[in-house]
């Protein structure tokens, strides 16, 4: 296998990390909708935490995405 195709495969494999980010963000917002639906008054209280959780979950997936980018475009 030559280097160029190995790079492509490696970048593709690194993007698997985004699965976790997807699951995490889905979880965060489903929990937010659940709790606000049960108790609409709690929205102001829980929303900042939801966005904090969103940012944290998204970041872990992006680590993998950055590795893919570095493999593809880094020199």
């Amino acid at each position: 296998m030559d280097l160029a195709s190995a790079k492509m495969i490696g970048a593709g494999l690194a993007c698997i990390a985004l699965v976790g980010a997807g699951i995490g963000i889905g979880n965060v917002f489903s929990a937010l909708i659940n709790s606000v639906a049960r108790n609409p008054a709690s929205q102001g209280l829980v929303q900042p935490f939801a966005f904090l959780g969103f940012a944290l979950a998204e970041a872990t997936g992006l680590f993998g995405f950055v590795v893919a980018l570095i493999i593809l475009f880094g020199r």
Partner: protein
Amino acid sequence: MAIELQPLEQFTIERLVPLHIGRLDVSFTNSALLMTIAVVLITALMVLGTRKAALVPGRWQSVTEMAYEFVANMVDTNAGHGARDFFPFIFTLFMFILFSNLLGLIPYSFTITSHIIVTFALAAVVFIGVTIVGIVRHGFHFLRLFVPEGVPVALLVLLVPIELLSYCIRPFTLSIRLFANMLAGHTMLAIFGGFAASVGLFAIFPLGINVLLVGLELLVAVLQAYVFAILTCLYLRDALHLH
């Protein structure tokens, strides 16, 4: 593909004013320029916003007050009591990261926070500062931070190294989170821009995605500044109150 994609090119640091002291390269780069602009803008916002302070705030003053109250609330709710002394630091940190993220979104400008050395320097300052605060406040008792309460002694052998490790990787996760978000977002914009340039008439689709992505990036820019500041608050609470 007709056009060679170079999405990482936007992150190159260029020397605007080459400057050398001995063998040390202290050139004024585009990174330094953007940092200066960010600091000047923040200072202008704060100074001009509070210059003609009125009981009923005007537009400018209310923006200033909103930023102040937002961070003050965050420090009060997350860092516990006694953390107000550190409010200026966290406010500075938040505004600097917010402004550099937002300035980076302007086309053809430069994102300071997409360089890991910048974010790592910020995170290292937070880490070292918080550790010093903890040691000064609690002395030797600071080490209790690594010993969870109500745990059998046998488990401590396992838990203390884990706690110690999770404490020591804080500056790395803090800096990589911000850097990775900025790098990934801006690279994605450049990649879709490259698609738009290479598909001719169908360019409307990648362009549409790009419009949505800029919206997402705007959210991420504000959110990451918020996350950085709130995590600093949480670390500070650990050091001030030990669990």
